[in-house]
């Protein structure tokens, strides 16, 4: 353990004393401190604060990620190239200890830089909030939608009966037999369609949100939703009315303005409506006859308050650091396998693909389910399928996007963080370091030959 700590400390001191590191830290600090002053957002307090978090923390985190790619890729490969590793490898230190020490040093450095960035952004947010005190609605909006993180709870889907599913499958198969693309099995499509709440004119549907957890009394729960209607051509603006039973009081009725199909809308209900962790609302259709409203549970979410802004920031810090730990481990593995430039490219590629995996996943899915019969279409489908396999194999750095969540006032649940860190950071990190130790053990340190 002493050797691991010594190697970590050595890396930390060595890096901190480099002129290039000093320039990087100064630029980063200047950026984090100065940028938020230049950000106005849409002019409101909330949007200014959001811009402060999104850019003031987002861009430096990206820069720290790139620095981690360089630092971790060079920690082994450059030490090998410059023969500095020889001095350590000829001591009673295992290859695993060397790698653990390097990883610890890089993570400590990342933690210090990240901590400084989060502290600078936190100071800006605190000062920004303080400056705006007394500005009424603006402050309330910032409090409700920025400083109070909210967790998203999707509405429970409607459970169709087997008979309903059978009938819809039959009708779909009969009508759509020649046009069905096969991307989604008919039964899945049918179940998905039947899981939507269908509200005929004058009738209501119960929209249930389960697992709401304890909500702070006196707080508001935002309910975001989008509605669709059939027939679509006649929908125009869709009216609706939300109602809820209030214990010992008059029922709550909210009639928001009518909006076109698919446009996100929002209402606010008191937290006291939650009973036993379940929020029950009724959605009524005051629409004219002949228009059916569809409410997709996946497009309806309740946003109860969970934790505070600073706690959310702390969890976000841990999530970003977890991502950097994995990145550093991958860099060390690459540095054990290749020379510095190749290791940098390799780690950078994995980081870029991992960071854009959501977008790439959508693109590949769209292409892989294409129907064209020409050679380029077939080739595209094959490549997209390979792309999807590669995406599955590589770590998903966009899994939890803490900066975006903090900026949007979305809570990062601790359980989600722990699960994400365990499966997308700890396990792959352990595998990467284990593989790197194996590689270094089999590799000749002097000339790069293999046993």
């Amino acid at each position: 353990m002493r050797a691991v700590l010594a190697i970590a400390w050595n890396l930390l001191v060595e890096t901190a004393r480099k002129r290039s590191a000093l320039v990087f830290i100064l630029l980063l600090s200047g950026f984090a401190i100065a940028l938020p002053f230049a950000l106005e957002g849409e002019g409101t307090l909330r949007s200014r604060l959001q811009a402060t978090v999104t850019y003031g923390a987002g861009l430096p985190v990206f820069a720290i990620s790139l620095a981690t790619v360089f630092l971790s890729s060079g920690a082994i490969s450059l030490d090998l190239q410059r023969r500095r590793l020889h001095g350590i490898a000829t001591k009673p230190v295992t290859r695993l200890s060397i790698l653990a020490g390097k990883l610890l040093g890089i993570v400590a450095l990342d933690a210090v830089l990240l901590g400084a960035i989060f502290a600078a952004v936190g100071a800006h947010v605190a000062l920004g909030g303080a400056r705006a005190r007394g500005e009424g609605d603006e402050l309330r909006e910032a409090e409700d939608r920025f400083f109070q993180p909210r967790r998203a709870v999707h509405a429970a889907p409607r459970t169709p009966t087997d008979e309903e599913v059978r009938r819809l499958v039959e009708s779909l198969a009969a009508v759509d037999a020649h046009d069905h693309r096969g991307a989604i099995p008919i039964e899945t499509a049918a179940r998905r369609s039947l899981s939507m709440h269908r509200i005929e004119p004058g009738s209501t549907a119960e929209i249930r949100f389960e697992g709401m957890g304890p909500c702070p009394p006196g707080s508001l729960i935002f309910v975001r939703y989008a509605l669709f209607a059939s027939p679509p051509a006649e929908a125009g603006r869709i009216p609706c009315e939300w109602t809820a039973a209030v214990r010992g009081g008059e029922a709550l009725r909210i009639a928001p303005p009518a909006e076109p199909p698919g446009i996100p809308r929002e209402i606010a209900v008191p937290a006291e409506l939650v009973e036993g962790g379940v929020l029950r609302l009724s959605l009524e259709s005051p629409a004219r006859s002949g228009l059916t409203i569809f409410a997709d549970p996946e497009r309806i979410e309740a946003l109860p308050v969970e934790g505070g802004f600073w706690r959310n920031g702390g969890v976000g810090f841990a999530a970003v650091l977890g991502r950097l730990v994995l990145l550093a481990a991958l860099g060390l593995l690459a540095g054990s396998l290749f020379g510095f430039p190749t290791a940098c490219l390799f780690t950078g590629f994995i980081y870029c693909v991992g960071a854009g995996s959501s977008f790439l996943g959508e693109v590949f899915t769209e292409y892989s389910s294409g129907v064209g019969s020409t050679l380029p279409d077939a080739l595209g489908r094959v490549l997209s399928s390979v792309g999807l396999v590669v995406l599955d194999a590589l770590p998903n750095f966009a899994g939890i996007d803490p900066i975006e969540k903090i900026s949007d006032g979305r809570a990062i649940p601790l359980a989600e963080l722990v699960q994400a860190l365990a499966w997308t950071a700890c396990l792959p990190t352990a595998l990467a370091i284990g593989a790197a130790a194996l590689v270094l053990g089999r590799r000749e340190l002097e000339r790069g030959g293999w046993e």
Partner: protein
Amino acid sequence: MESLAAPGVGVPEDLLVRTRGLTKVFRDFWGRARVRALDGLDLEIERGEVFGLLGPNGSGKSTTIKLLVGLLHATSGEASVLGAHPRDVASKARLGFLPEESPFHPHLTADETLRFHASLFSIPGRVARQRTDALLARMGLARDRKRRVGEFSKGMLRRLGMALALINEPELIILDEPTSGLDPLGTRDFKDLLSELRKEGRTVLLSSHLLGDAEEVCDRVAVLDRGRLAAVGRVSTLLEDDGRTQIVTEKLDPATIEALIAFLRERKGPGIRVEVGTPSARLEAFFLRTVARATDGAAS
């Protein structure tokens, strides 16, 4: 292929280094043999001796040393260092190594470098500080302990490297070209240090292409040539010339020399080959005397 199966088993305790048929072939990217750097080397180094590995450039000295400290993997044959495989981690606690080059972290000071390496041996902090102080003083680097290693001259780096090789008070010290980059004073210091290590009973394996240095400090030497062992034995035995006799006396006048030559021809026949000359001081001794005189003059 290199045997990884406990090569130390059966090696007598007093043999700190033993190689059997040690061979190293360097291959290119495609696995084709390019250079046979070492070819079936058999070597034994006993506890307490200073052993020199001699040979011209490319003879396999450094390759042998890198195989012995585990930086290279043997193509075939086996090696045992301190009774264990060269890549055995635990046995490295008893080994000191000075590589041919001294690639230290340039932003650390000499003091930090030594304490970092002491930590790698898990030497407790207080002991590490004591050893660091003593070694820096012994190597003449006490005044430069707070200077960054990147500012050191090549000679100072060698001294620091030597200090690092001794930080764990090793049983076996392997030195690759230890006097490379040292000035004559540094070389003298190094030879004195080797004498001290020998007195302490430590075993030293050093490689050098400076034959004079090796002759002065080594108990036994091995001469390598193109990866093969050309000769091995005690220095005095190897240098003994059975066919000649040397007589050294005070300076003689020409008449006495003539008389001596005549006497030898009379006894051994007119064909005897006699060389007479004035022995010259070795340049190293001359240099040391001159520097000492200059230093004394400056001091007075």
